[in-house]
């Protein structure tokens, strides 16, 4: 049966204990490394010490994180916590998609990679109709045109563009 303490807890139950424990463990580990990772400078005021703010922040993380764990209405993980942790892990797939996109752009080029990435990811998400494919391609072209051509954001030309004829190369590097 749900207790009064659980009922008053803000947010869902699943995953809370795992998150709080991992957060606290990492905070304690970082605090334990403070002597090694920061310096104490002689003849310098406490507030001007390079170690002062890391100590304050990590101290706060350990103290408040510890109190948060103490105040949680649960002391044991349930299967729902584990399912939730598995779901967090599933988000890694999209982080990999993103990193793949990031690593391919400097090699193949912004426009070509975007033209493949958007429809491919849309297909992976279940949009397989010709209409959605068209929208995906249109969106990819629009993004490149708006950001690289109109706003001129800094995305360097790809390695592949070096193999293009001289006239085309500079156009591709500048606009695509």
């Amino acid at each position, binding site marked *: 049966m749900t207790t009064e303490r659980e009922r008053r807890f803000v947010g869902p139950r699943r995953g809370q204990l795992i998150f709080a424990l991992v957060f606290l463990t990492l905070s304690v580990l970082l605090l334990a490394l403070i002597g090694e990772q920061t310096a104490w400078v002689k003849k*310098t005021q406490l507030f*001007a010490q*390079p170690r002062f703010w890391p100590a304050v922040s990590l101290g706060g993380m350990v103290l408040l994180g510890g109190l948060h764990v103490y105040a949680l209405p649960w002391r044991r993980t349930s299967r729902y916590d584990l399912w939730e942790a598995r779901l967090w892990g599933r988000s890694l797939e*999209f982080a990999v998609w993103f990193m793949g996109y*990031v690593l391919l752009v400097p090699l193949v080029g912004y426009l070509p990679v975007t033209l493949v990435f958007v429809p491919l990811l849309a297909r992976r998400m279940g949009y397989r109709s010709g209409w959605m494919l068209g929208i995906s391609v249109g*969106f990819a072209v629009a*993004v490149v045109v708006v950001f690289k051509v109109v706003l001129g954001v800094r995305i360097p030309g790809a390695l592949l563009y070096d193999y293009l004829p001289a006239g085309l190369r500079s156009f591709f590097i500048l606009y695509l």
Partner: protein
Amino acid sequence: MDLFLSAIDILMRWDVALALLAGSVGGVLIGAIPGVGPAVAIAILLPATFSMDPIVGLTVLLGIYGSSMYGGAIPAILINTPGTAVNALTTYDGYPMTARGEPRRALSLAYSASFFGGVFSVICLILFAPVLAKVAPMFGSREIFLAALLGLLLVVVAHRGQALIAGALACLGIFLNSVGMEPVKYTQRYTFGQDFLSSGVNLIVVVLGLFALSQAFVLLMDEDEKVHLNKLRGGMFQGLRELARHPRVTAVSASFGVLMGMIPGVGEFTAQFMSYTYAQKTSKRPQDFGNGSSEGLIAAETANNAVPAAAMVPLLALGIPGEALTAMMLSVFYVHNVVPGPALFQNDMDFVVALYLALLVLNVLVLVFLLFATRSLVQVVKIPNRFLGVCILTLSFVGVYSLRNSATDCLIAAGFGIFGFILKRLSLPAVPIILGMVLGGIMEVKLRAGMARVKEPLDFINRPISFILFIIIILVLASHLLRVWRDRKELKEAEWQTKTASTSFGQLMSRRKNSFLKDRGKEVRARHSKLLRRLRGLF
């Protein structure tokens, strides 16, 4: 008058006009799409604005900030889903109006109330600017440190029921800001010997991860929802007339918006809550609230739209952002070497007034756009969630990669994206991390400068403003502790009432005796004594 003319002169440029148009239309569109929100859009556009003039870049970002709440009212009223988080209260009275066949009336009322809130706050601030210009120079290092500390404290205590973890996350933000080469003694802090950490953790990378990428992950892992839209009937101008029938609620709500917006860390939610409560308490028909009351809708929409202009006050006057969106805007100032703070009010008052005038024009543009384009605009709520996730992931790349063309930045952003996704799943706030990063940097610099000039710790608060700020900090802390104590007392009482077993000492002892005498109790005691013997044997 000269000030106004020079401010108008700053705005009389084709690129500023274009920025105003793009900001207003773009903001409305972004607000109208549930699941995007201004934070995601501003995070993505931030690096693109670095190549623009400060006034152009800030106008685009302010445009998105100011107009997204207008757009956010559309899905809140039509499909009971707030477009932005601050439109949640709009669903209370907006959707019931749609359900009873008055969607046009609700939309028109929401636009009119938002317009009044926006314009009222800008006018208040233009009139208030000379006073601010006089007060701002009184803020030295100590005062700015205390104001930043107060801002951080308010952000933490505003998360009722989550203050502990919000505080821990704010500390995480301060820690992230301290990573890298320390600028005074040139020592490394938590770089683990890695070169990429020497320059520190970039705020924009964290912002993009926590707001844009995490939202993309949420949408990509979500299910698409079927959206049913009602047909819009009736005139769009009736809201303006109806608004005029409730001048008291409108004026009070706008005032709450301005006041709450100026206090760092408080923002839209408190302003809305106070306005809504006031409107309900003073209404002749309080029973209508939550069932399609026009006063409720006016209170919610007027208050939230009065906040953006007011939120610029601590940012411009003291260089202290009160929430995540203004924290992002601070980086635009820094990139252009424009340092917001007392000096800005003294030296570039025309720039400040130009920003406020831009906000004024923006409100007019948005209202005109919405009055004529709502019918076509409502279609954007039909964009499927997962496809929106694909779009945000693609756009996030531009935001992170264009910053320094670094794959490492993208990896860090992806890491923060997953962290932000976890926070969203657990309903934990990400804003304290961003404010911790921004205000942590300000506090470090100002505390060092402030303490260099004091002999005893109490000298730190020996000036009037620093003393007042210190007293406010103590009051905020005390009131928060009092609230925690009351909540705890209430919880104990509630637990007491729902408890089935008696808690009297005599009965406890008797239950314990019974437990010892039962077979199960004997078994447990035997096991425990066996374990104790083994433990003793070890030594």
